[in-house]
């Protein structure tokens, strides 16, 4: 089998636990334990699990915000982390969209400055090229051109998330880690953002690592799923297999806890 676009090999992250007294033994929390996954180009891999299962820690390691304690992240076979630093080419190709749309945008920056940041830090574009690229990106995510000089607090959550998506795509990243990108949004806005994400993946051939606690959203967006439980991947495979014929007990308990049985009953005759 050819080398996949992205491969996680035995990825582990430990955090030291606080001690109440200095003579106590320092505990260690293993937030992510020996996770191995591969992601093919153009794929959308969902990572699901409940709070504290390590999915966000995993996401932060993949984009290079958090250094793994052990294991490797390989982008086309080349390690993302080398000598405690993130490889420069990998930095450009791996970007992230955050859960909190407003919190991920510096309140003192205008839309233009926000979207331009990766172009300044990661490319050699001059001011004119950057300006043109920002305008093209705003059009791509459906932000009106006259918004360019506004600040984040003037926008709704959905519009902030569009800015976040434009920023992630600015320097032509091809792997986007989406950390709960729609869970802070209203239902009608969620659908707009999901539509944009699907459209962008199709048009630009993007690869998604979609972190979510919402199985229905993951079912809608992802073609493969990995289920995390206490830092470990307990089950992975094609979405249809994992979510409709789960093999692990934890996946089954997640699915059975999912509300909406009654609603589905009302819906079925219409569908």
């Amino acid at each position, binding site marked *: 089998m050819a080398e996949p676009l992205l491969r996680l090999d035995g990825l582990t992250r430990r955090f030291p636990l606080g001690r109440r007294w200095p003579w106590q033994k320092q505990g260690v929390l293993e937030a992510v334990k020996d996770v191995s996954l591969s992601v093919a180009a153009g794929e959308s891999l969902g990572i699901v699990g409940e709070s504290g299962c390590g999915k966000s820690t995993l996401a932060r390691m993949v984009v290079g915000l958090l250094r793994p304690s052990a294991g490797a992240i390989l982008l086309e076979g080349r390690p993302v982390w080398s000598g405690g630093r993130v490889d420069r080419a990998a930095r450009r190709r791996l970007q992230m969209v955050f859960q909190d749309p407003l919190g991920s945008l*510096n309140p003192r920056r205008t839309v233009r400055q926000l979207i331009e940041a990766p172009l300044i830090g990661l490319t050699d574009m001059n001011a004119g090229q950057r300006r043109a690229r920002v305008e093209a990106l705003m059009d791509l995510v459906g932000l009106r051109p006259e918004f360019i000089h506004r600040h984040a607090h003037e926008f709704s959550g959905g519009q902030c998330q569009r800015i976040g998506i434009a920023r992630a795509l600015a320097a032509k990243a091809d792997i986007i880690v989406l950390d709960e990108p729609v869970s802070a949004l209203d239902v009608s806005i969620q659908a707009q953002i999901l539509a944009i994400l699907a459209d962008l993946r199709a048009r630009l051939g993007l690869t998604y690592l979609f972190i979510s606690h919402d199985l*229905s959203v993951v079912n809608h967006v992802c073609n493969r799923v990995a289920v995390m439980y206490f830092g470990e991947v307990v089950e992975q495979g094609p979405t249809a297999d994992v979510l409709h014929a789960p093999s692990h007990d934890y996946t089954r308990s997640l699915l059975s806890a999912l509300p909406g049985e009654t609603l589905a009953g009302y819906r079925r005759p219409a569908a």
Partner: protein
Amino acid sequence: MGEPAEPGEPVAALAEPAGSGRAGAWARLTANRMTSVGLAVLGLLLALTALAPVLPLADPDATDLSRHLLPPFSEGAWLGTDQFGRDLLSRLVWGTRVSLGVGLAATLAAALVGATIGLLAAYYGRLVDTLLMRGIDTVLAFPYLLLALAIVAALGPSLLNALMAIAIVNVPFFARAVRGQALAIKNLDYIAAARLSGFSDARIILTEILPNVFPVVVVTMATTLSWMILETAGLSFLGLGAQPPTADLGSMLGNGRELVHRAPWVAVLPGVVILLLAVGINLVSDGVRDVLDPRLKSGVLVRPAALTARRLPDAASAAVSAAPAPALGPDLVLSVRGLSTRFEVGGRVLKAVEDVSFDISRGETLGLVGESGSGKSVTALSLAGLVASPPGVMVKGEVWLNGGSGGPIDLARADLATLQAIRGGRIAYIFQDPLSALNPVLRAGEQVAETLVRHRGLGRGAAMAEAVRLLDAVKLPGAREKARAFPHELSGGQRQRVMIAMALANRPDLLIADEPTTALDVTTQQRVLALLDELRRETGAALLFISHDFAVIGDLCDRVAVMYAGQIVEQGSAAALFARPAHPYTERLLQCVPDLKAPHDVTAIPNLPPAVDRLPPGCSFAPRCHRATQACREAPIALRALDGDHAARCLYAEEVAAGTAAPAGAPAHG
């Protein structure tokens, strides 16, 4: 799921000044009367000192022993002279200039050094943080004046050395304040985004963190400036600062010390100026802090009233008590009629809840569903007069609570004492975020017991025993031990169980649950919902369940009301409403949610809901509706009964419910 808590939202939007930016900040600053007084005093002193070189003042250092110790109002010396015959007015003006200048310079120096230390310590953490902050602690460990004295003693007395000493002594205040703020900012996602953008550490500190800690630096400067001026004066008073013949306020004070009995004005006048300066700066800095301090922005200064303000049509008339109580069925617990609640700030009127009517019967669950800002939480809070005022005002409607000993009560017109007996008694609330709804310094059991003492008049011991029994009833594992736990020691699901125990403590007739499981994991959510449903069946309480989640509403509720832009747009039994949605908003919203159990095409609703202070003249949903026609846009649409108790606020409700396609010619949206 992290849907933002709704009640705060419209209020937060209102808190945003209409003309934000510099002009808004200045207006807010001068709106404070004490700050204006401070600004006037300080402005006068600053103007005098700035104009010192051009004012017709005598030479401050010119001695004339023949004119020594002239009292104030003497000819040629308005404020008199000192023992060397120097003109006191001139020396005061020049001396204030020196004191202010040294104070400002020391403040700037301390701010620069302190902010740098704070930023570096916060950003790099670990060893850098330890070394820098322990250094700061060392400085703080000495009494500041002693340290300043030691520094000046080592460097020799001079104004410049005094300035340095005072700056050094004040560095810790800046370092600590900046570090605290920077630590909070460092963990925000936009700093992570800056790192992903390939920015260097220096660039992140200077362009991402510094602008956001700047308000803290300004606030600290404003609050330490008067201290620094006093400290400069103190050192000069001791002869360690300004050297003769240079005048500064402290040295003038020291100069007049021995003459207090013979010529009190020589010491009193500089003392008065120091007082004016300090008071002026403190008043202004308090104002600046109120405007800039992010911790005060959330409205700590404005305490909401215990009861929502009301401007109801007949509330002012004497006929209030004569308002006829409607004939309500014996099973009816609550009947809300035409409820309207607004938020009023400045010239803006936000119609948060407009003409909302619904009934809930004993043992029934009514689901109130809508997106954030649709008015569902404000509706719930209005029922017991809990909407924050200002800015909330109830302007219309009746809220009849049925079944009490004295017949139905209109809660919209009940007095505060009546409502306080009902809140937590016959009507109980469960909120989305139990961590902020529970008191962090009281143990879980005490909080449950508190409501029993208040409403049932139980003694402390009996109340605690009953609290443990209730915690056991909500299936809190190890209820006896958990009753002694503080809220932060419990998990999210456990905290919500404590909230439920508190709500059920007084066997309420109506339980209002506002997004009670939104912050919980799906497996925890399932258990909490099952518990809520079970307890409702056991107690026979009516349940008003507020959520944005159709799946949860569907599983739990008998009847459903859908809210959009402050109005109920559709209402009916869950079966009718979900199987045959009759309002296009309900229909489209159901298509927005991916559903694992019944997969369907997911189609977004275009655009955003309207702002509730700029509602369209016709149907609020018309601008986003694929069926909207001219008639929809012209006049408000009434809620219309369809079959049974199914009702919708749409001209084409029958076609929508029948699933007929939108008429040709209607604008298509993608």
